[in-house]
Protein backbone atom coordinates (compact mmCIF):
# COMPACT_ATOMS: atom_id res chain seq x y z
CA UNK A 1 0.00 0.00 0.00
CA UNK A 2 2.68 2.46 1.14
CA UNK A 3 4.82 2.36 -2.01
CA UNK A 4 1.93 3.66 -4.11
CA UNK A 5 2.35 6.94 -2.26
CA UNK A 6 4.87 9.58 -3.11
CA UNK A 7 8.22 9.08 -1.39
CA UNK A 8 9.71 12.37 -0.21
CA UNK A 9 13.39 12.61 0.65
CA UNK A 10 13.85 14.63 3.81
CA UNK A 11 17.16 16.47 4.26
CA UNK A 12 18.23 19.57 6.10
CA UNK A 13 18.68 21.68 2.95
CA UNK A 14 15.28 20.81 1.51
CA UNK A 15 13.08 23.70 0.42
CA UNK A 16 9.70 24.51 1.95
CA UNK A 17 7.03 22.14 0.61
CA UNK A 18 4.16 24.09 -0.85
CA UNK A 19 1.69 21.22 -1.22
CA UNK A 20 1.52 17.67 -0.04
CA UNK A 21 -0.63 15.13 -1.96
CA UNK A 22 -4.07 14.68 -0.39
CA UNK A 23 -3.51 10.93 0.11
CA UNK A 24 -0.39 11.68 2.20
CA UNK A 25 3.28 10.92 1.67
CA UNK A 26 5.94 8.51 2.79
CA UNK A 27 9.19 10.08 3.86
CA UNK A 28 12.73 8.80 3.47
CA UNK A 29 15.12 10.27 6.01
CA UNK A 30 18.75 11.02 5.26
CA UNK A 31 21.42 10.20 7.86
CA UNK A 32 21.09 13.81 9.04
CA UNK A 33 18.10 12.64 11.08
CA UNK A 34 19.30 9.35 12.47
CA UNK A 35 22.31 7.51 13.79
CA UNK A 36 23.08 3.96 12.82
CA UNK A 37 25.08 1.15 14.29
CA UNK A 38 25.70 -2.24 12.74
CA UNK A 39 26.19 -5.17 15.10
CA UNK A 40 26.35 -8.92 14.63
CA UNK A 41 24.32 -10.13 17.59
CA UNK A 42 23.21 -13.65 18.45
CA UNK A 43 19.50 -12.78 18.40
CA UNK A 44 16.90 -14.25 16.11
CA UNK A 45 14.15 -11.70 16.01
CA UNK A 46 14.01 -7.94 15.46
CA UNK A 47 11.99 -7.36 18.64
CA UNK A 48 14.78 -8.99 20.67
CA UNK A 49 17.36 -6.82 18.96
CA UNK A 50 15.21 -3.74 19.55
CA UNK A 51 15.25 -4.39 23.29
CA UNK A 52 19.00 -4.00 23.47
CA UNK A 53 19.12 -1.04 21.08
CA UNK A 54 19.22 1.67 23.84
CA UNK A 55 22.31 0.12 25.43
CA UNK A 56 24.15 0.18 22.08
CA UNK A 57 23.77 3.93 21.76
CA UNK A 58 24.76 4.73 25.32
CA UNK A 59 27.52 7.31 25.32
CA UNK A 60 27.04 7.81 21.60
CA UNK A 61 23.92 9.93 21.73
CA UNK A 62 22.62 12.64 24.01
CA UNK A 63 19.05 12.67 25.24
CA UNK A 64 18.66 8.91 24.97
CA UNK A 65 15.19 9.16 26.48
CA UNK A 66 13.94 11.02 23.39
CA UNK A 67 15.29 8.44 20.99
CA UNK A 68 13.24 5.83 19.23
CA UNK A 69 14.76 2.81 17.61
CA UNK A 70 14.21 0.92 14.41
CA UNK A 71 16.02 -2.37 13.77
CA UNK A 72 16.36 -4.40 10.61
CA UNK A 73 18.49 -7.30 9.50
CA UNK A 74 21.14 -6.83 6.86
CA UNK A 75 22.97 -9.94 5.68
CA UNK A 76 24.46 -11.39 8.88
CA UNK A 77 24.19 -8.37 11.07
CA UNK A 78 21.58 -6.14 12.63
CA UNK A 79 21.28 -2.49 11.71
CA UNK A 80 20.17 -0.31 14.62
CA UNK A 81 18.70 3.08 13.75
CA UNK A 82 18.20 5.68 16.49
CA UNK A 83 16.04 8.69 15.69
CA UNK A 84 14.52 11.59 17.57
CA UNK A 85 10.83 11.76 16.67
CA UNK A 86 10.28 15.21 18.10
CA UNK A 87 13.21 16.63 16.18
CA UNK A 88 11.88 15.10 12.95
CA UNK A 89 8.36 16.36 13.61
CA UNK A 90 9.59 19.88 14.29
CA UNK A 91 11.69 19.85 11.16
CA UNK A 92 8.82 18.61 8.99
CA UNK A 93 6.51 21.28 10.33
CA UNK A 94 9.05 24.00 9.54
CA UNK A 95 9.05 22.69 5.98
CA UNK A 96 5.26 22.79 5.70
CA UNK A 97 4.61 19.07 6.16
CA UNK A 98 1.96 18.22 8.75
CA UNK A 99 2.45 15.04 10.79
CA UNK A 100 -0.99 13.83 9.77
CA UNK A 101 0.11 13.90 6.15
CA UNK A 102 3.01 11.52 6.74
CA UNK A 103 2.06 7.91 6.24
CA UNK A 104 5.30 6.07 6.95
CA UNK A 105 8.84 7.02 7.81
CA UNK A 106 11.71 5.14 6.18
CA UNK A 107 15.46 5.44 6.55
CA UNK A 108 17.85 5.75 3.62
CA UNK A 109 19.91 3.00 5.22
CA UNK A 110 17.14 0.50 4.48
CA UNK A 111 17.57 0.90 0.73
CA UNK A 112 21.32 1.37 0.60
CA UNK A 113 21.57 -0.95 -2.43
CA UNK A 114 19.23 1.27 -4.45
CA UNK A 115 21.67 4.17 -4.21
CA UNK A 116 23.93 3.07 -7.02
CA UNK A 117 24.55 6.72 -7.82
CA UNK A 118 24.46 9.94 -5.77
CA UNK A 119 21.25 11.77 -5.02
CA UNK A 120 21.63 15.52 -4.90
CA UNK A 121 20.42 17.26 -1.76
CA UNK A 122 19.92 20.88 -2.74
CA UNK A 123 22.83 22.69 -4.30
CA UNK A 124 25.72 21.78 -2.03
CA UNK A 125 25.24 18.30 -0.63
CA UNK A 126 24.61 14.83 -1.98
CA UNK A 127 23.53 11.52 -0.51
CA UNK A 128 25.84 8.68 -1.50
CA UNK A 129 26.33 5.03 -0.74
CA UNK A 130 29.81 4.96 0.75
CA UNK A 131 30.86 1.34 1.12
CA UNK A 132 27.37 0.28 2.13
CA UNK A 133 26.66 3.22 4.43
CA UNK A 134 24.54 6.19 3.43
CA UNK A 135 26.52 9.37 3.81
CA UNK A 136 25.89 13.05 3.10
CA UNK A 137 28.88 14.53 1.30
CA UNK A 138 29.58 17.91 -0.35
CA UNK A 139 28.73 17.87 -4.04
CA UNK A 140 32.26 18.96 -4.91
CA UNK A 141 33.50 15.62 -3.64
CA UNK A 142 31.39 13.72 -6.18
CA UNK A 143 32.93 11.99 -9.15
CA UNK A 144 31.97 14.20 -12.13
CA UNK A 145 31.45 11.06 -14.25
CA UNK A 146 28.71 9.78 -11.98
CA UNK A 147 25.30 10.90 -13.09
CA UNK A 148 23.04 11.77 -10.10
CA UNK A 149 19.76 9.96 -9.76
CA UNK A 150 16.41 11.04 -8.30
CA UNK A 151 14.49 8.99 -5.83
CA UNK A 152 11.00 7.76 -6.59
CA UNK A 153 8.36 5.46 -5.04
CA UNK A 154 10.44 2.40 -6.11
CA UNK A 155 12.90 3.28 -3.36
CA UNK A 156 10.22 2.66 -0.72
CA UNK A 157 11.37 -0.10 1.67
CA UNK A 158 8.98 -2.79 2.81
CA UNK A 159 9.00 -1.88 6.48
CA UNK A 160 8.78 1.51 8.04
CA UNK A 161 7.58 3.28 11.14
CA UNK A 162 4.62 5.56 11.77
CA UNK A 163 4.40 8.62 13.90
CA UNK A 164 2.56 7.76 17.05
CA UNK A 165 -0.37 10.05 17.39
CA UNK A 166 -0.30 10.79 13.71
CA UNK A 167 -3.02 13.32 12.98
CA UNK A 168 -5.11 14.03 16.07
CA UNK A 169 -5.05 10.48 17.39
CA UNK A 170 -5.14 10.42 21.17
CA UNK A 171 -4.29 6.71 21.56
CA UNK A 172 -0.99 5.15 20.66
CA UNK A 173 -0.84 1.99 18.57
CA UNK A 174 0.22 -0.13 21.53
CA UNK A 175 -2.60 1.21 23.66
CA UNK A 176 -5.02 0.64 20.80
CA UNK A 177 -4.12 -3.00 20.40
CA UNK A 178 -4.08 -3.62 24.15
CA UNK A 179 -7.45 -1.94 24.71
CA UNK A 180 -9.02 -3.60 21.67
CA UNK A 181 -7.71 -7.02 22.79
CA UNK A 182 -9.11 -6.53 26.31
CA UNK A 183 -12.50 -5.36 25.00
CA UNK A 184 -12.68 -8.21 22.51
CA UNK A 185 -11.75 -10.75 25.17
CA UNK A 186 -14.54 -9.52 27.44
CA UNK A 187 -16.93 -9.41 24.49
CA UNK A 188 -16.18 -13.06 23.74
CA UNK A 189 -16.66 -13.98 27.42
CA UNK A 190 -20.01 -12.15 27.53
CA UNK A 191 -21.17 -13.77 24.29
CA UNK A 192 -20.22 -17.24 25.54
CA UNK A 193 -21.92 -16.66 28.91
CA UNK A 194 -24.96 -15.20 27.21
CA UNK A 195 -25.31 -18.10 24.84
CA UNK A 196 -24.89 -20.51 27.76
CA UNK A 197 -27.71 -18.83 29.68
CA UNK A 198 -29.78 -18.73 26.53
CA UNK A 199 -29.12 -22.41 25.86
CA UNK A 200 -30.05 -23.33 29.42
CA UNK A 201 -33.28 -21.35 29.22
CA UNK A 202 -34.18 -23.01 25.96
CA UNK A 203 -33.50 -26.51 27.29
CA UNK A 204 -35.50 -25.73 30.43
CA UNK A 205 -38.40 -24.34 28.49
CA UNK A 206 -38.43 -27.38 26.16
CA UNK A 207 -38.32 -29.72 29.16
CA UNK A 208 -41.13 -27.78 30.82
CA UNK A 209 -43.20 -27.95 27.66
CA UNK A 210 -42.69 -31.70 27.35
CA UNK A 211 -43.67 -32.29 31.00
CA UNK A 212 -46.79 -30.16 30.71
CA UNK A 213 -47.82 -32.07 27.59
CA UNK A 214 -47.52 -35.33 29.52
CA UNK A 215 -49.31 -33.92 32.58
CA UNK A 216 -51.93 -31.50 31.21
CA UNK A 217 -53.67 -31.34 34.60
CA UNK A 218 -50.61 -29.56 36.00
CA UNK A 219 -50.72 -26.69 33.55
CA UNK A 220 -52.22 -24.28 36.05
CA UNK A 221 -49.78 -23.08 38.67
CA UNK A 222 -52.60 -22.98 41.25
CA UNK A 223 -53.36 -26.65 40.64
CA UNK A 224 -49.69 -27.44 40.90
CA UNK A 225 -49.40 -25.54 44.16
CA UNK A 226 -52.45 -27.21 45.66
CA UNK A 227 -51.24 -30.71 44.65
CA UNK A 228 -47.77 -29.94 45.94
CA UNK A 229 -49.14 -28.72 49.29
CA UNK A 230 -51.34 -31.78 49.67
CA UNK A 231 -48.69 -34.35 48.85
CA UNK A 232 -45.81 -32.58 50.61
CA UNK A 233 -47.72 -32.71 53.86
CA UNK A 234 -48.39 -36.46 53.46
CA UNK A 235 -44.84 -37.09 52.29
CA UNK A 236 -43.25 -35.35 55.29
CA UNK A 237 -45.48 -37.07 57.84
CA UNK A 238 -45.16 -40.54 56.35
CA UNK A 239 -41.40 -40.23 55.88
CA UNK A 240 -41.11 -39.31 59.55
CA UNK A 241 -43.08 -42.41 60.57
CA UNK A 242 -40.91 -44.65 58.47
CA UNK A 243 -37.72 -43.03 59.76
CA UNK A 244 -38.84 -43.66 63.32
CA UNK A 245 -39.59 -47.33 62.58
CA UNK A 246 -36.20 -47.67 60.91
CA UNK A 247 -34.43 -46.08 63.89
CA UNK A 248 -36.26 -48.34 66.32
CA UNK A 249 -35.35 -51.41 64.26
CA UNK A 250 -31.68 -50.48 64.74
CA UNK A 251 -32.22 -50.70 68.48
CA UNK A 252 -32.91 -54.41 68.27
CA UNK A 253 -29.65 -56.17 68.99
CA UNK A 254 -28.37 -59.04 71.10
CA UNK A 255 -29.98 -58.71 74.51
CA UNK A 256 -32.55 -56.13 73.38
CA UNK A 257 -35.94 -57.35 72.14
CA UNK A 258 -38.88 -55.37 70.92
CA UNK A 259 -41.93 -56.31 72.97
CA UNK A 260 -44.36 -53.74 71.65
CA UNK A 261 -44.63 -50.96 69.13
CA UNK A 262 -47.34 -48.46 68.37
CA UNK A 263 -47.21 -45.86 65.61
CA UNK A 264 -50.15 -43.64 64.81
CA UNK A 265 -50.64 -40.22 63.27
CA UNK A 266 -49.43 -38.28 66.28
CA UNK A 267 -47.01 -40.38 68.26
CA UNK A 268 -44.96 -43.54 68.56
CA UNK A 269 -44.27 -45.77 71.49
CA UNK A 270 -42.00 -48.80 71.74
CA UNK A 271 -41.05 -51.09 74.57
CA UNK A 272 -37.83 -53.07 74.66
CA UNK A 273 -36.92 -55.93 76.97
CA UNK A 274 -33.25 -55.74 77.97
CA UNK A 275 -31.44 -58.72 79.42
CA UNK A 276 -29.28 -56.59 81.78
CA UNK A 277 -28.52 -53.04 82.84
CA UNK A 278 -25.64 -52.67 80.37
CA UNK A 279 -27.95 -53.46 77.48
CA UNK A 280 -30.54 -51.04 78.85
CA UNK A 281 -27.82 -48.37 79.12
CA UNK A 282 -26.67 -48.93 75.55
CA UNK A 283 -30.26 -48.81 74.32
CA UNK A 284 -30.87 -45.59 76.23
CA UNK A 285 -27.82 -44.03 74.59
CA UNK A 286 -29.04 -45.05 71.15
CA UNK A 287 -32.48 -43.57 71.87
CA UNK A 288 -30.89 -40.37 73.17
CA UNK A 289 -28.89 -40.10 69.97
CA UNK A 290 -32.15 -40.18 68.03
CA UNK A 291 -33.62 -37.62 70.44
CA UNK A 292 -36.33 -40.03 71.62
CA UNK A 293 -37.75 -39.92 75.15
CA UNK A 294 -36.92 -42.91 77.31
CA UNK A 295 -38.29 -44.17 80.57
CA UNK A 296 -37.42 -47.25 82.57
CA UNK A 297 -40.12 -49.78 83.40
CA UNK A 298 -40.22 -50.33 87.15
CA UNK A 299 -38.66 -53.50 88.60
CA UNK A 300 -37.07 -54.56 85.30
CA UNK A 301 -34.40 -53.63 82.75
CA UNK A 302 -37.08 -52.91 80.17
CA UNK A 303 -37.12 -49.52 78.49
CA UNK A 304 -39.97 -47.51 77.02
CA UNK A 305 -39.10 -45.25 74.12
CA UNK A 306 -41.55 -42.71 72.83
CA UNK A 307 -41.96 -39.49 70.95
CA UNK A 308 -44.27 -37.35 68.90
CA UNK A 309 -44.54 -37.19 65.13
Amino acid at each position, binding site marked *: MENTKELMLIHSQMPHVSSVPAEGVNILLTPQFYTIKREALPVKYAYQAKRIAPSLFEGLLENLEHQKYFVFEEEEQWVFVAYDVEKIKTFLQTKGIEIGQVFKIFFAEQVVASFHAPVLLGEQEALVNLNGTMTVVPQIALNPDEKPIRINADFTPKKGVSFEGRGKSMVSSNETYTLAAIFLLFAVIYFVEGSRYGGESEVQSQ*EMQALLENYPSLQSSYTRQSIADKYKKIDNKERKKRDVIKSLSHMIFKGSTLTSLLVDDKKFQAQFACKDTNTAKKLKELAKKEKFNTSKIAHSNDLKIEGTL
Partner: protein
Amino acid sequence: MNQLKAYKNEIIVGLALLLLLIAFGYKQGKVSGQTDTSASSELQELKEVIALKKVWGDKKTTKRVDKLKTMVAPSKVKWSRTSKKLSASFSNLNNQELNRLIIRVMNLAVKIQKLEVKKSGASYHVELKCKW
Protein backbone atom coordinates in the same frame (compact mmCIF):
# COMPACT_ATOMS: atom_id res chain seq x y z
CA MET B 1 -10.39 8.73 3.83
CA ASN B 2 -7.27 10.40 5.15
CA GLN B 3 -9.21 11.74 8.10
CA LEU B 4 -10.49 8.23 8.86
CA LYS B 5 -6.95 6.87 8.75
CA ALA B 6 -5.86 9.64 11.09
CA TYR B 7 -8.37 8.37 13.63
CA LYS B 8 -7.67 4.69 12.96
CA ASN B 9 -6.71 3.97 16.58
CA GLU B 10 -9.80 5.60 18.02
CA ILE B 11 -11.99 3.78 15.49
CA ILE B 12 -10.47 0.40 16.41
CA VAL B 13 -10.90 1.05 20.15
CA GLY B 14 -14.42 2.38 19.56
CA LEU B 15 -15.49 -0.64 17.54
CA ALA B 16 -14.04 -3.03 20.10
CA LEU B 17 -15.85 -1.13 22.86
CA LEU B 18 -19.09 -1.21 20.88
CA LEU B 19 -18.74 -4.96 20.43
CA LEU B 20 -18.11 -5.31 24.15
CA LEU B 21 -21.25 -3.33 24.96
CA ILE B 22 -23.32 -5.38 22.50
CA ALA B 23 -21.98 -8.59 24.05
CA PHE B 24 -22.72 -7.29 27.55
CA GLY B 25 -26.24 -6.33 26.51
CA TYR B 26 -26.75 -9.74 24.92
CA LYS B 27 -25.62 -11.52 28.10
CA GLN B 28 -27.72 -9.29 30.37
CA GLY B 29 -30.73 -9.89 28.14
CA LYS B 30 -30.33 -13.64 28.44
CA VAL B 31 -29.74 -13.49 32.21
CA SER B 32 -32.72 -11.23 32.90
CA GLY B 33 -34.88 -13.31 30.56
CA GLN B 34 -34.05 -16.31 32.67
CA THR B 35 -34.71 -14.50 35.97
CA ASP B 36 -37.98 -12.99 34.82
CA THR B 37 -39.61 -16.27 33.92
CA SER B 38 -38.05 -18.13 36.88
CA ALA B 39 -38.04 -21.01 34.43
CA SER B 40 -35.58 -22.94 36.50
CA SER B 41 -37.56 -22.84 39.77
CA GLU B 42 -40.84 -23.44 37.96
CA LEU B 43 -39.37 -26.51 36.30
CA GLN B 44 -38.04 -27.80 39.61
CA GLU B 45 -41.43 -27.26 41.22
CA LEU B 46 -43.18 -29.08 38.39
CA LYS B 47 -40.76 -32.01 38.63
CA GLU B 48 -41.31 -32.19 42.37
CA VAL B 49 -45.11 -32.19 41.98
CA ILE B 50 -44.90 -34.93 39.35
CA ALA B 51 -42.61 -37.01 41.58
CA LEU B 52 -44.92 -36.57 44.59
CA LYS B 53 -47.97 -37.40 42.49
CA LYS B 54 -46.27 -40.51 41.15
CA VAL B 55 -45.57 -41.77 44.67
CA TRP B 56 -48.68 -40.77 46.60
CA GLY B 57 -51.21 -40.87 43.80
CA ASP B 58 -50.09 -44.19 42.33
CA LYS B 59 -53.06 -46.19 41.10
CA LYS B 60 -51.21 -49.46 41.60
CA THR B 61 -51.03 -48.94 45.37
CA THR B 62 -54.24 -50.93 45.96
CA LYS B 63 -52.73 -53.92 44.16
CA ARG B 64 -49.56 -53.62 46.20
CA VAL B 65 -51.50 -53.36 49.47
CA ASP B 66 -53.43 -56.52 48.57
CA LYS B 67 -50.15 -58.39 48.33
CA LEU B 68 -49.72 -57.98 52.10
CA LYS B 69 -52.52 -60.51 52.52
CA THR B 70 -50.56 -63.19 50.70
CA MET B 71 -47.34 -62.68 52.64
CA VAL B 72 -48.37 -64.98 55.47
CA ALA B 73 -50.63 -67.98 55.78
CA PRO B 74 -54.34 -67.05 55.40
CA SER B 75 -55.06 -68.46 58.84
CA LYS B 76 -52.87 -65.75 60.37
CA VAL B 77 -54.60 -62.83 58.63
CA LYS B 78 -57.76 -60.91 59.29
CA TRP B 79 -58.35 -58.63 56.34
CA SER B 80 -60.80 -55.85 55.81
CA ARG B 81 -60.32 -53.45 52.89
CA THR B 82 -62.86 -50.96 51.64
CA SER B 83 -61.84 -49.05 48.54
CA LYS B 84 -58.69 -47.27 49.71
CA LYS B 85 -58.76 -48.10 53.38
CA LEU B 86 -57.29 -51.14 55.06
CA SER B 87 -57.71 -52.61 58.47
CA ALA B 88 -55.79 -55.84 58.94
CA SER B 89 -54.42 -57.92 61.75
CA PHE B 90 -51.68 -60.51 61.52
CA SER B 91 -51.18 -62.98 64.33
CA ASN B 92 -48.68 -65.68 65.30
CA LEU B 93 -45.94 -64.16 63.17
CA ASN B 94 -42.40 -65.33 63.63
CA ASN B 95 -39.41 -62.95 63.46
CA GLN B 96 -38.89 -63.38 59.74
CA GLU B 97 -42.55 -62.91 58.89
CA LEU B 98 -42.69 -59.80 61.04
CA ASN B 99 -39.59 -58.33 59.40
CA ARG B 100 -40.87 -59.02 55.90
CA LEU B 101 -44.28 -57.54 56.70
CA ILE B 102 -42.93 -54.36 58.31
CA ILE B 103 -40.46 -53.76 55.46
CA ARG B 104 -43.24 -54.21 52.91
CA VAL B 105 -45.55 -51.81 54.80
CA MET B 106 -42.76 -49.23 55.04
CA ASN B 107 -42.25 -49.38 51.30
CA LEU B 108 -45.93 -48.85 50.51
CA ALA B 109 -47.08 -45.33 49.65
CA VAL B 110 -49.89 -45.42 52.22
CA LYS B 111 -50.81 -43.23 55.16
CA ILE B 112 -50.21 -45.37 58.23
CA GLN B 113 -53.00 -44.57 60.66
CA LYS B 114 -52.04 -47.25 63.12
CA LEU B 115 -49.29 -49.81 63.24
CA GLU B 116 -49.21 -51.89 66.36
CA VAL B 117 -46.82 -54.73 67.09
CA LYS B 118 -47.16 -56.86 70.21
CA LYS B 119 -44.95 -59.72 71.27
CA SER B 120 -46.56 -62.64 72.98
CA GLY B 121 -44.17 -65.47 73.78
CA ALA B 122 -42.11 -66.13 70.68
CA SER B 123 -44.64 -64.79 68.22
CA TYR B 124 -45.86 -61.38 67.21
CA HIS B 125 -49.23 -59.84 66.63
CA VAL B 126 -49.53 -56.94 64.21
CA GLU B 127 -52.41 -54.58 63.65
CA LEU B 128 -52.35 -52.28 60.65
CA LYS B 129 -54.71 -49.49 59.68
CA CYS B 130 -53.88 -47.44 56.66
CA LYS B 131 -55.38 -45.48 53.75
CA TRP B 132 -54.13 -44.19 50.39
